[in-house]
């Protein structure tokens, strides 16, 4: 039987593929925001006992992951007004292909892992791993600093999904702390992005290679 | 008291023996040669004279002859001449004697360096160089002798019947030792083919060039010292060549004199038939002695388990 969550998760997988293939930053932000929203509401479906606090927490997470973080990056893009396209290290088509391989690999790995799941959702773990690794992939494959930040956010989303999937121990205060950290981290990165734009006039990380041996 | 008499006798006779070499060389040269007492005449002449000292020299220049004569004379005190017990002997005296001769050499060289003369410096450098290999040979021989006798004194090697015992236990390898020691004799006393005492070119001298500036009684001391030194080595070689020892004592000095004459003649013949080596070939020649001594030692080592 196909769990309702799986339907959404398959959409997420699709968005991952798109985010690997897109060259538009705004598009990438949209996909990331979508993933953030899904990641936030998944716990809602998978059998966590929903208390009032839990509900509130889910709402906050949704708000931050789905809206605040993408929005702040979006504002940065608007502020720095990128005109020129930055060539990625690994091209979009190759990335897309890599994404496909990744999804397959993630399914295989999650099948092997044999984790006692809280509920029967076939796609949960593959999706989590895929988002996580795609985030890292973007961090390594994109020269555009903004894309890298988005990769980081994606990675965080993946870890959050892993966390909610794996563990039943919902200490909302703790998770809220983590969320706050992520938010602050993204904010700091956004500030740095703006500064990079000011100092270098591009957000290409190729210029950030002066400190070396 | 007998050892001291013998020592005095040796000191007195040493110049005489040196004259034999001159005589032999003259014979080979077809000349009549100077008389056998020539060295005594020279010494007397020198002792009658005064001295001229270079303005460059210091007290060390005067110390040179004194120390070299003293060390050579002292060395003779440890040597059993004619197989008769020496003036003083103790276990390890060989080391003392060899290093004492080294002391004499040090001062001869220092006295030469004192004159600021380039020629004397040249001679000094050679005097410092060649005996290093001789010393190695001497110690190799010592090791061999120690292996045979278990003693470390000249008396235990050369007094009485001991040389015969050495021959007995070592056999014919002893010949190598004798040849090695003869080479050392030639080197240490600046004889042909290492050095030519009669040459006229200062650039090729060793010993003679070092004493150019000495004069008068000082030079006499130096001459006497070199006679003593030659006598020292010759006695060693002669004792090994003629390891006989008679129980009745009067014969022994006579035998010693004969054998010494043989050694001196041999040295003279060598000088007459050989040419002086080029300076850079000399180390090879001396190394031969070291090789012979080592060879002898190794062979003995195989004999005596």
């Amino acid at each position: 039987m196909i769990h309702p969550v799986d339907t959404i998760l398959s959409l997420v997988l699709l968005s991952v593929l798109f985010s690997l293939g897109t060259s538009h930053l705004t598009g990438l932000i949209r996909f990331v925001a979508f993933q953030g929203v899904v990641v936030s509401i998944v716990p809602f479906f998978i059998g966590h006992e929903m208390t009032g606090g839990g509900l509130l927490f889910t709402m906050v997470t949704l708000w931050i992951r789905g809206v605040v973080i993408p929005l702040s990056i979006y504002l940065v893009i608007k502020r720095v007004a990128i005109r020129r396209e930055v060539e990625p290290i690994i091209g979009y088509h190759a990335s897309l292909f890599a994404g496909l391989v990744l999804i397959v690999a993630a399914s295989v790995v999650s099948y092997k892992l044999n984790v006692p799941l809280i509920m029967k959702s076939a796609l949960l773990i593959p999706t989590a791993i895929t988002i996580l690794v795609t985030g890292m992939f973007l961090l390594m494959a994109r020269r555009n600093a903004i894309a890298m930040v988005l990769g980081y956010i994606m990675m965080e989303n993946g870890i959050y999904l892993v966390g909610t999937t794996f563990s039943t121990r919902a200490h909302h205060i703790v998770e809220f702390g983590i969320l706050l950290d992520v938010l602050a981290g993204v904010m700091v990165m956004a500030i740095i992005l703006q500064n990079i734009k000011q100092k270098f006039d591009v957000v290409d990380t190729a210029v950030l290679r002066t400190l070396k041996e | 008291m007998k050892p001291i008499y013998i020592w005095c006798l040796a000191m007195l006779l040493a110049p005489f023996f040196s004259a034999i070499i001159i005589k032999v060389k003259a014979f080979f040269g077809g000349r009549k040669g100077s008389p056998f007492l020539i060295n005594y005449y020279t010494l007397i002449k020198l002792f009658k004279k005064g001295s001229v000292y270079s303005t460059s020299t210091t007290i060390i220049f005067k110390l040179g002859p004194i120390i070299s004569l003293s060390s050579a004379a002292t060395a003779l005190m440890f040597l059993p001449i004619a197989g008769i017990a020496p003036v003083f002997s103790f276990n390890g005296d060989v080391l003392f004697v060899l290093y004492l001769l080294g002391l004499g050499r040090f001062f001869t060289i220092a006295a030469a360096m004192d004159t600021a003369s380039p020629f004397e410096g040249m001679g000094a450098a050679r005097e410092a160089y060649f005996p290093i290999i001789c010393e190695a040979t001497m110690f190799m021989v010592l090791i061999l002798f120690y292996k045979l006798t278990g003693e470390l004194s000249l008396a235990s090697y050369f007094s009485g019947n001991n040389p015969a015992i050495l021959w007995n236990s070592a056999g014919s390898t002893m010949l190598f030792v004798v040849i090695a020691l003869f080479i050392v004799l030639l080197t240490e006393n600046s004889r042909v083919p290492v050095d030519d005492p009669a040459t006229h070119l200062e650039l090729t001298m060793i010993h003679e060039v070092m004493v150019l500036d000495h004069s008068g009684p000082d030079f006499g001391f130096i001459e006497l010292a070199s006679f003593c030194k030659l006598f020292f080595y010759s006695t060693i070689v002669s004792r090994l060549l003629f390891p006989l020892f008679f129980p009745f004592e009067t014969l022994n000095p006579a035998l010693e004199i004969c054998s010494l004459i043989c050694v001196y003649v041999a040295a003279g013949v060598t000088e007459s038939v050989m040419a002086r080596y080029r300076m850079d070939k000399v180390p090879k020649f001396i190394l031969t002695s070291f090789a012979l001594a080592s060879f002898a030692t190794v062979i003995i080592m195989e004999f005596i388990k």
Partner: protein
Amino acid sequence: MIEILMLAPFLTGIMAFFLPRSSGRALLVLTGAFHLGLSVLIWIKRPVALFPDYFAVTPEGLLSLLVISLLFFLIAIYSTGYLKAAKIKSEHIFTGSMLIFLATMTMVTMSDHIMVMWIAIEATTLASAPLIYTHRTKASLEATWKYVLICSVGIAMALLGSVLITLAMDIGKVDAPVSFSALTSVAKQLDPTWLKAGFVFIFVGYGTKMGLAPMHTWLPDAHSEAPSPASALLSGVLLNCAYLGIFKTNKIMHAAGLGDFSGTILIVFGLISIIAAATFILKQTEYKRMLAYSSVENMGIIAFGTGIGGIGAFGAIICLIHHSLIKSSLFLTSGNILLGYGSGLIEKTGRLAKLMPKSFVAFFGGFAGISGFPPFGIFIGELFIIVGAFRTGHFFVAGIFILSLCVIFAGFANQVMKISFHDTTAEEIKITEKASMVWPQYALLLTSIVLCFWLPDSLYQTIIDAVATIGGGY
């Protein structure tokens, strides 16, 4: 009490953003003094936290806390002089970030919950990022960018690791608080496979922050671009904080009987770090980068010692304390050199012994200390680590360890000789050596000397307690 310790610098930090320069500096020193006093009080009293699930006073935490407090106080004193000479534009941001940085680090030392620890460590990254960007140059911006991104990615790994440890609890059907102390006591029941996986992620994650090679890449950039008081703080205590995370997880591993696994990882990465440090120290051209790589080296030594266990772990803790004291002193002195010569390049310096004698004493003393010469404490720590390594049969790695230390010393000494004695093109020194800019270093070095010969009972007991669970101690 513990909570005050965390909150006070946080609040004063926020205050500092709005204060004028002079009062900001005073606030820095005052907060430092207050923090130090309170830390000593906690040291004596050992109070219980308000939220025992999240915070606890542990021996290793206390040790780090005391080091942090002492260092911060002395660095604050130094900063007053440094800020006057350096003329930083946005000084209030610097002061405020320093204080918030202190607050986050205090939180790291006090946190007992795995996730809270993560939160605190990530917070240190964010709080210290503005410090690195203080000078507002292109290079410092690049360093900040790398620092934030690499550390964030690395620490994200640690978060994943923490999640995996909770998974190990779930699978092992353990019901306990997710705190280090609780987990250590029930470690045997945890699922070993997931625990190991969790350790790997946590190790790599916090190892990134700690500066273990090959994840150390941000460290030389950040340390060399930050103003010296901040570098001193980064190198002296931030690395310790990250180490604390690894140390506590390692404790769980030991309690679970997986000490060999974690120990091997620690040893291998320790060695890689030392070799990496050797690589870059040998031909280093900038002295602050050299000091940064020296930190990589020392973190490698500490990881190595921890992995060795036994007397080696005891040595590692001693190295940890003394490295903080000495390295921060070195970084502070490097600030003097930078201000004095106006360049971070070694070739632009020289003749330090003559031109800045007071700084020279501190600098050379620090160098001798960091290289393991007595009477500084790293000597005794390295001695214990080496003999410990042999004791546990790690002959081969001990050999590599020793040889790498030799190479590092050769490189380090070469550079230090250049700075101290070689001829220089500098005509004059741009600053005067004020008391406030040398005495903190002297105090740090002196502390190291004293601690090399005399450990207070309670300090000794704390160290022994800290290493007891990983088979440490004498």
